[in-house]
C-alpha cells in the first residue's frame, strides 16, 4: 500500500538534494555553530582562556618576588611583567605608570602594582592601616570577569606563597594585642619560620599549593588591596558600547550582502546586461554599488549609536570624530565583503544561504556575540581574520577607552586593506557577468 504523502516527501528530498545552499544551512551551519560554542563554553582544559594580568613589582623585596612567582605559577593567569619584545628587543619591566597606561590601552584588563614597602608588611588583618602599603589593582571595568578572578587568586597566592609572612605578621599582632610572647616562645616561633622559609626555598618559590587550583573561598582578604578603575570608571554601562559595535557590525554585514544581492536580481532580469550595454562598465557599476552600500551601512551605524545614546547613555556626541573614522572604514569593508559574496553566488537564494553561514560564523568568532575574554587564546588569534574583531576593537577604543583618532590607525589600516582586497576579489569574480 502506498502512503499518500510519500510522493510529497520524495519531491521535497529531490529538491533539497539539488539545493547545496539549503543543505549547507541545514547541516553545516548548526555543526559549525555548535563547535564554536562548545569550544568557548565547553571547558576543554587545553583551550580554557587564561586571564592576562600585568604585574609591576615596585618593591622588589623577597616577599614581593615570592608573590609574583606565586602568581606566575597560577595556571589560570598569564602574568605579564614587561611589554612584549619589539623587534627582538626586550622591554623594561612594567612600572606603576606604564602598567596603568597598558590597561588603558587594552593590553590587559587588570594590573597589579606591588608598592614599595610591601615586603615589610605584606599581610593585613582587619582594616587597612597607614603603615601597610596596599597592592593596587587597576581594572578595566569593561571586563567583568578578569578583575574578580585576579582578586581571588591574589589572596590565594598571598596565603600559599607567603605562609612565613602570614605567621610572622600574626606574631606581631599577638605581641600587640596579647602582651607578647616570652623570649623562648619567640625563639621557637622564629626557628619554625626559618624552617618554613627553607622549605619554600627548596620548592623554588612556588606556592604551597604548587599552583594547583585551590578549593574553598578567600573571604575578606589577607593581602591589602585597593582597587581602582582606570578605564570606564565614569561610564554607565560597560557593555553597551561594546554591543552597539558588535551587533551593529554583524547586522551591517547582513544588510550589505542583502543590498549587494541586487546585482543578482539585475543579472537575472537582464537589467545588468542592459546597464553594461550603456556607458557603464563593470568596475563603475561595482564602485557605485559599493558607494551605495557604504552609505547605507554608515547610516545604519549612526542609527545604532544614536539609539545607544538616547536609551543607554552612550556618549555618542562626545566621540563624533572617532565614530566617523571607524564608521566609514567599517562601512567600506562590510560593503566590499557583501559585494564579494554576491559576486560568488549565482542566485539570490544562494547568496542568502552563504551570507548567513559566513556572517554568523565570522560574528561568533569575531566577538559580535560574546566578548573575546571568554574565548580560548587560539580563538582570540582566529578572530584577527574577521572584520568584526577589528571593527569592534576600533569602536571600543573610541567609546570605551576614549582614545584619540590617531590611536585607531591599526584598525583603520587593516579594515581599509581588507576592504580593498575584498573589492578587488569581487571585481575579479564579476568578470563572469561581463560577457
Amino acid at each position, binding site marked *: 500500500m502506498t502512503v499518500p504523502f510519500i510522493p510529497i516527501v520524495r519531491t521535497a528530498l529531490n529538491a533539497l538534494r539539488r539545493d547545496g545552499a539549503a543543505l549547507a544551512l541545514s547541516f553545516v551551519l548548526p555543526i559549525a555553530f555548535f563547535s564554536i560554542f562548545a569550544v568557548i563554553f565547553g571547558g576543554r582544559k587545553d583551550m580554557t582562556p587564561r586571564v592576562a594580568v600585568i604585574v609591576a613589582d615596585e618593591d622588589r623585596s623577597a616577599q614581593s618576588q615570592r608573590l609574583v612567582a606565586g602568581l606566575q605559577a597560577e595556571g589560570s593567569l598569564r602574568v605579564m611583567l614587561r611589554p612584549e619584545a619589539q623587534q627582538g628587543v626586550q622591554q623594561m619591566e612594567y612600572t606603576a605608570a606604564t602598567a596603568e597606561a597598558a590597561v588603558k590601552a587594552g593590553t590587559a584588563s587588570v594590573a597589579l602594582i606591588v608598592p614599595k614597602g610591601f615586603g615589610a608588611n605584606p599581610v593585613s588583618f582587619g582594616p587597612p592601616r597607614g603603615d601597610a602599603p596596599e597592592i593596587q589593582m587597576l581594572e578595566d571595568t569593561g571586563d567583568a570577569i578578569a578583575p574578580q578572578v585576579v582578586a581571588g587568586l591574589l589572596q590565594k597566592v598571598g596565603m600559599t606563597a607567603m605562609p612565613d609572612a602570614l605567621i610572622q605578621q600574626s606574631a606581631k599582632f599577638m605581641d600587640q594585642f596579647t602582651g607578647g610572647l616570652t623570649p623562648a616562645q619567640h625563639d621557637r616561633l622564629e626557628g619554625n619560620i626559618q624552617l618554613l622559609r627553607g622549605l619554600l626555598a627548596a620548592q623554588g618559590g612556588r606556592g604551597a599549593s604548587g599552583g594547583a587550583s585551590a578549593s574553598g573561598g578567600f573571604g575578606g582578604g589577607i593581602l591589602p588591596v585597593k582597587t581602582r578603575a582606570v578605564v570606564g570608571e565614569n561610564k554607565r554601562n560597560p557593555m553597551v558600547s561594546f554591543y552597539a559595535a558588535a551587533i551593529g557590525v554583524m547586522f551591517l554585514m547582513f544588510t550589505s550582502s542583502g543590498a549587494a544581492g541586487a546585482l543578482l536580481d539585475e543579472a537575472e532580469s537582464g537589467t545588468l546586461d542592459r546597464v553594461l550595454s550603456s*556607458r557603464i562598465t563593470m568596475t563603475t557599476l561595482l564602485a557605485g554599488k559599493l558607494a551605495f552600500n557604504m552609505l547605507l551601512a554608515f547610516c545604519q551605524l549612526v542609527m545604532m549609536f544614536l539609539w545607544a545614546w538616547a536609551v543607554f547613555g552612550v556618549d555618542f556626541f562626545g566621540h563624533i570624530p572617532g565614530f566617523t573614522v571607524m564608521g566609514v572604514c567599517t562601512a567600506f569593508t562590510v560593503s566590499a565583503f557583501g559585494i564579494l559574496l554576491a559576486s560568488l553566488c549565482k542566485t539570490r537564494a544562494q547568496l542568502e544561504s552563504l551570507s548567513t553561514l559566513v556572517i554568523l560564523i565570522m560574528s561568533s568568532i569575531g566577538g559580535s556575540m560574546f566578548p573575546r575574554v571568554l574565548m580560548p587564546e587560539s580563538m582570540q588569534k582566529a578572530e584577527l581574520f574577521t572584520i568584526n574583531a577589528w571593527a569592534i576593537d576600533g569602536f571600543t577604543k573610541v567609546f570605551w577607552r576614549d582614545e584619540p583618532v590617531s590611536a585607531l590607525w591599526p584598525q583603520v589600516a587593516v579594515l581599509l586593506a581588507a576592504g580593498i582586497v575584498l573589492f578587488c576579489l569581487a571585481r575579479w569574480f564579476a568578470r563572469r557577468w561581463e560577457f
Partner: protein
Amino acid sequence: MPLPVLPLRVEGLVKRFGALTALDGISLEVRAGESLGLLGPNGAGKSTLIRTIVGRVVPDSGSVSIFGDPAGSTEAREALGWVPQELALYPRLSCRENLEAFGRYHGLGGAKLRDAVAWCLNWAALEDRAGDLVKNLSGGMKRRLNMAAGMIHRPRLVLMDEPTVGVDPQSRNRIFEMIAALNGEGISLIYTTHYMEEAERLCERIAIVDHGRFIAQGTADELVQRSFESRSQVETRFAPGAEGVDVWVSGRGGRLTGDTAQFAVNHSLEIAGLLESAAGAGLEVIDVRLQRPNLESVFLQLTGRELRD
C-alpha cells in the same frame, strides 16, 4: 576602394558554447533606415547574434562594426539601442525613474535627459503612467517601457529581441505603431521574432536563421518566389489513422506533418488530380485548402520543420 560606412556590418561571426555552435559564420549588413527581420525558431541563434552585436557576447571569430566602430566601443554603444527579450527594468522604480536611470547611464543629464524622457513616455504612450511603479504596470505597458528604455539615448540603430513575447493583440498593435514611428524617422532596425506575420509586416528585408546560419535572405516576396516560384500551396488533411499516407504523400512530392500534407501546385486545377489520386489509394481526405505560400511555408520548405518547433 573603402567600404561605405553602414549602420551595421557583420562578417563571419562564429560563437560556440561548448559543443553547441550558436553562430556558424554569419555575415550581415544593414543599410541606413532599413528594417531587417531575423526570423527563426527558438535556439536558432537570433539572440546570440543580437547580443554579439551589442557587445555582450564576444565571438570566437568574425567582426561587428556599428557605423564603422567595433562592437562594445563607446561610439558603438551610443549609436546602438537594445531592447532585450527580458523585461530589463527596475521593478521598484517608476516609469519615469527607470527612463531617467538608463538615460544617466548613457551620459544624459539636465534638459537633454528631460527631453529624452518626455519623448520616450510619449512614444510608448505611457505619459499618464509616468509616476507608476513598473511592478504595477500591465504586461503590455512593461513591454512598451522596456522598448522606451532602449531608445532613451536616441540611437541610430535599434535591435529589438522579440519585443512582443507574451503581449496581448491590442498591446502588440501599439508596439507595431511604435516601430512604424521609428521607421518613419529613418532609424535602422533589426527585429527578431518567430512570428512570421510580424516580420512580414514590419521588415523590408528578412533573414531566416537556423542552426546559427542564414539559410535565406531577401524581402518576403523574394523568399517566397525563390522557394515556390509562382506555385501555390495545397494543404490536405487526412482522416486520423489512415494507413499508407506517408508513402502516398512522398510519392506525390509532398511533405507530411502529422496528418496534414503540403503540396506545391502551379494551378488550382491540380487539386482535383490530387484528390482523385488519394481516393484511388484508399485515403480519406477530410479537408483541403489552397493558399499563397508565406514565410512559414518558406521556412518549412527550407528546413523541413515548423517555425515554432
